[in-house]
């Protein structure tokens, strides 16, 4: 575990999380959630648990984002 990389990744996590809950575009929020999962996978990876990392990358950044985008196509894109 390398401390500077860890701090940079956690800083990005906080920024992405705040952006994901404040943005008005739901599609952008979903993409930001996928980016959150990707950074989180990097955090798991540099903690040394590679299986959790690729599970997070496959489910959080891959399938979950695809399902959310497909769900947005059934509703409106902009938050009222």
């Amino acid at each position, binding site marked *: 575990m390398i401390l500077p990389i860890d701090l940079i990744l956690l800083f990005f996590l906080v920024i992405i999380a705040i952006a994901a809950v404040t943005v008005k575009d739901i599609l952008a929020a979903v993409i930001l959630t996928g980016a959150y999962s990707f950074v989180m996978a990097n955090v798991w990876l540099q903690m040394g648990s590679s*299986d959790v990392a690729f599970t997070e990358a*496959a*489910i959080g950044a*891959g*399938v979950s984002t695809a399902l959310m985008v497909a769900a947005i196509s*059934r509703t409106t894109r902009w938050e009222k």
Partner: protein
Amino acid sequence: MTGGGAIPEKRMAGRDVIIETISRLILPFILLFGFYVMIGTEGTGGGFQGGTILAAGFILYITVFGAKRGREMIPESVNTFFESFGLYLYNGSGLLCIIFSMGAVQFLNYPGIWPVTDLVGVAGSRAWIIAFMVEVGIGLTVMAAFISQYFDLAWKDEEEEMVVRKE
């Protein structure tokens, strides 16, 4: 879904060659990695992750080539078959333990399957049965469940596009 009639025409007519070729090239490797995660290692773990990676590969195919061609590749019947076959495989491996040992061991107590235990030993039988029956069962069920979820969300979209184009 803004734009009315122009977007479906464009989407149907001009498919992106680069995206199609790249996804067609990368799909076998995604599926191979999914199977590796599922049965590549001896011991528990990996069924859900491997199934999710397989589902992600098929979802990539459905997204790139459209829900109609995806349905031709993975019909509803095949999807339902995989969904229940995985469950049968998982439950059957547990039930075989009781059947082979005449009720001496409990459900999912893998060394109870004595033909495999005689062949490769207690630890070997546990590893083999978990790898090839339990993990594959979990993985197939998870894969089919994710694919059917994605179809439920993506398929109606295509039907509505057809309605829009007729109007």
